[in-house]
């Protein structure tokens, strides 16, 4: 699309009537039977099951905060016996402007044999993990979970500082020294499947 035929809109701009064929989507709100924009950006009309979803996308970076059920990319910075702390850096494929604090408890590391989980055999500081955001109960930290096959460590470095490659879902191997280390490894899925995962 060239910039000439963009549908530019501004916050508070009335976009259309809200009825059963036009539904308010991302970046819009409904008020007294009309759909209004909340952002300065471009209008996008998505057709889904004969219903037109009106969406507005900002021209710059989206303002995002993690919410329940999101798949996030996080970097571990502290580990203890009970939990590990991390910084959430991306939601799906969107990079956050500021990183948010997350916490991953021992019982949320994997699905099976929950009581035999040992944090230091699953994660180490510096590891990059994929995790899902649990319902928010505390004000300041997001609780995360890696209790799914596709979630866990994505990239990690060995004690010698070299990149490691996954060899099973519990082990990774250093690419230089071939030393094996224990991790809760994520099963990496192709990007198309990944997107389906994010939508759920």
């Amino acid at each position: 699309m060239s910039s000439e035929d963009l549908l530019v809109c501004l916050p508070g701009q009335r976009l259309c009537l809200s009825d059963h064929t036009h539904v308010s989507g991302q970046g819009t709100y409904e008020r007294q039977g009309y759909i209004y924009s909340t952002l300065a950006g471009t209008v996008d009309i998505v057709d889904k099951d004969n219903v037109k979803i009106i969406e507005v996308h900002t021209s710059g970076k989206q303002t995002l905060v993690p919410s329940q059920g999101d798949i996030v990319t996080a970097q571990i910075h502290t580990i203890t016996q009970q939990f590990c702390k991390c910084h959430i850096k991306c939601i799906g494929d969107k990079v956050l402007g500021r990183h948010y604090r997350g916490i991953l408890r021992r019982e949320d590391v994997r699905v099976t044999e929950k009581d035999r989980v040992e944090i230091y055999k699953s994660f180490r500081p510096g590891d990059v993990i994929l995790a899902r955001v649990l319902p928010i109960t505390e004000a300041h930290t997001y609780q995360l979970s890696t209790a799914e096959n596709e979630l866990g460590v994505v990239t990690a470095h060995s004690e010698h500082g070299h990149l490691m490659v996954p060899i099973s879902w519990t082990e990774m191997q250093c690419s230089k020294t071939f030393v094996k280390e224990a991790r809760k490894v994520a099963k990496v899925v192709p990007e198309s499947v990944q997107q389906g995962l994010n939508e759920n």
Partner: protein
Amino acid sequence: MPIDHKRINGPEITIPYQLFDKLNTKSGKSQFKDFVKSNGVRIDGRSANDHRKIFLKTGVVSQAKGSAYIELDKTKVIVSVFNPREIPNKSEYSSKGEIYCEFKYAPFSCHKRRLHQQDPEELQYSAIMKQALESAVSRHEFPNFQVDIYALVLHNDGAALSAAITVAGVALAHAGIPMYDLITSVTLAVQGEFVLVDPNLEEERLCQVPLFKDEQNTNHGIVVLSMLATHEQVSQFYQTGNLAMDNLTSAIETLTNAAKDIVVLVKKCLVRHVIKSARNVED
């Protein structure tokens, strides 16, 4: 005053040299007459309802999520907006996000040198800004978080508060913070029968005290009003001085009309930004 160990302090007592200028013996009334002629034409050639020339620009601070800069002739205000962050010192869950506003005059922005810490006037203006902007932002979209808005006045030549509110609205839209509506703000200075839109610093100063006491018309003061553009709602109203009830409605009407004129400029500025960034994506 306690010594500020984190800055370099000058001598304890300093006096502005302007105090030793040849004494200005004119009365406030005749000074006012110099600024506003009896037919309502002001010293810079504007009529009572005219706004000064406005210059608006977005994206002036690269490190901020959103930023904007405004010039009302000589008055210059810069605002930056940051990504939502955790609310400090708060443990319970709040379903609505908060906004934090800080309004500050640069030390060299006024006739008298300002101190580095916020003074009561600046704190009050911060609170007014927060009140004005709160109803424009869709705060339920970032529960538990706080959006920081910082306004810095580089040069104060009147109407700094309303300039800061208007430009903060532009910066919020530039930052992509969800908003119900665009917001604009206008200042009005009242003195006797004169009602001046967008006063400069001298006009503001002369309207603080009643000058026409003998004429039984003690109307004087400053009125600031902020408006949401599409829904035509007043989000903030601030008045000091003395204003007769009969004049209130006409004052509000003057302000709403002036606010509507600014919306056009705000829209133009934001559309320019959207188109420009769309072009950047294409390239």
